[in-house]
């Protein structure tokens, strides 16, 4: 059937997203597709191509990953990533990464150079340093736009999914809980408890 590649930059796009922002996102996706297609024409293996393309997406601040990541309630960035090689059924994953410039490559190293499948938080950070991957200050990942969005989320007393404010029509039960003030008055981290119920 020949090679094929698909990329995504998140779901749940706000219909009111400015056209300029939409165009910016499309340009990045196009660039990534061209990078991936060129790599495939050069006979790079699928596992190498997905890492290459996701690194590009992480490095550009347009989408919610790497630089441009969403912020925690504390205003910090905690990233996570995973990778899987189909024919070998090998996988690697990381969570709670705060200084690794390209989390997907750390996930690849977990797969290739550790006996484990998933490392998180300080374990993942320690492994990153053992492997000598590029690290940066947490501030590197934080953009002005996301600082504004966090402020907006805090004022609205809600969490935000990618590119949207949770509304009943778009975010299911969690959104209904936010809008209805659900959770029986109990709050955690400033949010109605029911927002976290699905977790």
């Amino acid at each position, binding site marked *: *059937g*020949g*090679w*094929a*590649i*698909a*990329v*995504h*930059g*998140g*779901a*749940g*796009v*706000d219909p009111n997203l400015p056209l300029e922002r939409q165009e910016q996102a*499309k340009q990045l996706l196009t660039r*990534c*597709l*061209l990078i*991936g*297609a060129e790599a*495939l024409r050069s*006979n790079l*293996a*699928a596992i190498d*191509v*997905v890492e290459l*393309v*996701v690194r590009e*997406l*992480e490095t550009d601040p347009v989408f*919610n*990953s790497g630089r441009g990541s*969403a912020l*925690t309630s504390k205003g*910090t960035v*905690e*990233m*996570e*990533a*995973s990778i*899987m*090689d*189909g*024919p070998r059924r090998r*996988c690697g*994953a990381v*969570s*709670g990464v705060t200084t690794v410039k390209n*989390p*997907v490559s750390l*996930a690849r190293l977990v797969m290739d150079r550790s006996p484990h499948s998933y490392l998180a*938080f300080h374990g993942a950070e320690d492994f990153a340093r053992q492997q000598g991957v590029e690290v940066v200050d947490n501030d590197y990942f934080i953009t002005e736009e996301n600082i504004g969005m966090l402020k907006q989320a805090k004022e609205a007393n809600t*969490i*935000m*999914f990618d590119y949207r404010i949770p509304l009943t029509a*778009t975010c*299911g039960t969690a959104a209904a809980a936010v809008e209805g003030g659900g959770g029986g008055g109990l709050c955690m981290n400033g949010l109605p408890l029911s927002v*976290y119920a*699905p*977790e």
Partner: protein
Amino acid sequence: TVGCVVVDGEGRCAAATSTGGLMNKMAGRIGDSPIIGSGTYACEVCAVSCTGEGEAIIRGTLARDVAALMEYKGVSLQEAVDYVIKERLDEGKAGLIAVSSAGDVTYGFNCNGMFTGYATEDGFMHVGIWE
């Protein structure tokens, strides 16, 4: 969240997903992206990367379900993707991209829009948000 799925010229599939999670999330929250079988999965028949409401994707083991439908039920990639988007997300809103080892490529979502793009060896390329 960002992701990429690829089938190369030798029919090998791979998937990768990366994210910062939710804006204003609790420190320590883990979503679907790093969970193999939920936000990311690849095997001999397909590769899948998901995005959206992570908790719903985890509950639905969305990525693995696409592969399982193809492996056990013998359905096409498109049928598997359509099924999990329609039947496995409850009220959650999410989307995914997928390729098969046969060179098929597709995506699906049940929310307002999703930033997606795909390209194939025969020269077809598409980038979109809403359709």
